[in-house]
């Protein structure tokens, strides 16, 4: 926490509102710039396909992909649901596992010394290579895809959450102990809320990894799901379907990410409010 700050009380307020103004302006830019760029790329793509007479098998145009999505939304939805649900379940389990491991690492020195180096070493394994083994161990049902998704998604949650729990100021802990706070009180009113920004940044990485895990599982074996649809359509040179599935996958990913971001917003509101 910076202690220099603005010397006078009014100064602090003015500086605060000035920052808010700048925030409003840069907000507008931060929305319009990326949207504009994306639009330019799409327009260029459409133009290249139309003028260059590129075969739809190689590269379908954005408009034809959108048309397919609108026409066959029922099929796409049918495949999107299992992928999204499995990703969500994998993500939730990865978060619970990650936070639980972080708590153990934070509170037990033995566990910390035993676990942490192994976790880091674990991280060096190209984990995607292990996907087929999960099918052997857990069968071809959704459990193997969920397990694999947990397997590749939990690590960032452990690392970020542990860092968050450890980031608590030493003086703050002393203050709590001096007030005869129990470890549980310290955890619920200081450690956990201090770690929230860390936990959510870990969760945002985990949600994308969880989706990757499910898609890879579906590539290997599945009867439904967007990963399955992509493989199936590509095998039949149905590039348009494949691309449409990828677009829907992006939308599902955005949706899940948005839910996590919303969760963060709610958590911040909850802790900022007087809980008593």
């Amino acid at each position, binding site marked *: *926490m910076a*202690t*220099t*700050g*603005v*010397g*006078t*009380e009014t*100064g*602090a*307020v003015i500086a*605060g509102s000035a920052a808010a103004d700048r925030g409003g302006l840069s907000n507008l830019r931060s929305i319009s710039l990326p949207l504009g760029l994306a639009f330019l790329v799409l327009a260029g793509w459409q133009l290249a396909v139309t003028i260059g007479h590129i075969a739809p098998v190689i590269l379908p145009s954005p408009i034809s992909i959108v048309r397919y999505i609108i026409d066959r939304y029922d099929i796409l939805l049918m495949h999107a649901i299992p992928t999204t649900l499995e990703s969500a379940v994998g993500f939730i389990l990865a978060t619970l596992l990650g936070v639980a491991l972080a708590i153990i690492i934070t509170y037990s020195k033995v566990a910390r010394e035993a676990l942490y180096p192994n976790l880091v070493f674990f991280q060096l394994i190209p984990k995607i290579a292990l996907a087929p083994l999960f099918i052997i161990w857990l069968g071809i049902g959704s459990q193997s895809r969920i397990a694999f998704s947990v397997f590749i998604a939990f690590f960032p949650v452990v690392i970020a959450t542990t860092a968050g729990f450890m980031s608590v*100021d030493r*003086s*703050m802990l*002393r*203050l*709590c*102990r*001096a*007030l*005869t*706070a129990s470890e549980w*009180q310290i955890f619920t*009113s*200081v450690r956990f*809320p*201090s770690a929230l920004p860390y936990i959510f940044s870990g969760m945002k990485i985990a949600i994308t990894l969880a989706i990757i895990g499910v898609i890879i599982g579906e590539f290997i074996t599945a009867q439904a799901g967007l990963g399955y649809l992509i493989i199936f359509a590509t095998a039949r040179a149905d590039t348009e379907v494949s691309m449409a599935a990828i677009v829907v996958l992006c939308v599902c990913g955005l949706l899940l990410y948005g839910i996590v971001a919303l969760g963060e917003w709610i958590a*911040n509101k909850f*802790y*900022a409010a*007087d809980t*008593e």
Partner: protein
Amino acid sequence: MPQPTNATAAAGESPLVSVSKVQKTYLTRQAPVHAVASASLDVARGEFVSLLGPSGCGKSTLLMMIAGLEAPTGGLITLAGSEVKKPRRDIGIIFQDATLLPWKSALDNVLFPIRILKLPMESYRQRARDLLAMVGLTDFENKKPSELSGGMRQRVAICRALIHDPEILLMDEPFSALDAITRDQMNVALSEILETYKKTVIFVTHSIREAAFLSDRVVVMGGRPSTIVLDMKMPFPRPRRFEIEETAEFTSVCRKLRLTIEEAHGHPPAASNASSASRGGGVIE
């Protein structure tokens, strides 16, 4: 305001805080660190005692032992007659950094001890507002720490230390991170607060002027391993105003303290930055 009494001479009344022959050795991976060799100190109820001394002489360690956060390796610390073995609820602590919860408003930060101590929140809310008003933060009670200046944050920390009405305030360099002007304001604010909410205070500082201005007694620690080398009454009347700093008596008291610290530090007095110690905040380091 009860006349400040030198605890050892207090007529009949036993001291509130009694530190006798306390010793602290930290066991580290390398050689053990002798933080405090032997410290004896009595503090009477309502007294304001400052601890001065060179960096690393064990002031914070002594304070933490009185708070029950560190166990002495020798000697005895008693609080109102009973031995300090673990933290007690009737102590308020203030550190160099305000250490506020960044996601809570100033008011909720002040009420933090009430939550930890499971006291009825509603009955303390008004007291929290009164305390914030006392330090001039009425309009800021809903602001987050990041929206407050350093001095304002430290005032919130003082209110937080007072909210559960502890007997004793332990302050470890509470104003060291502040600029000189803010620091002077904080000194006046603190002495005003203590005129309203009478407390027993043990105050660690590096500033000789600050110690002399605020205290009933100044205790100088020094030597390696450290002991208490001077225990001096401050002869200035209360309530204290800045004018006392202009007096010859104040200057001579400060000089005496400075010479003692320099001796304890092992420096010949002439070789030190005497001019800065006597006037510009009196920071030793």
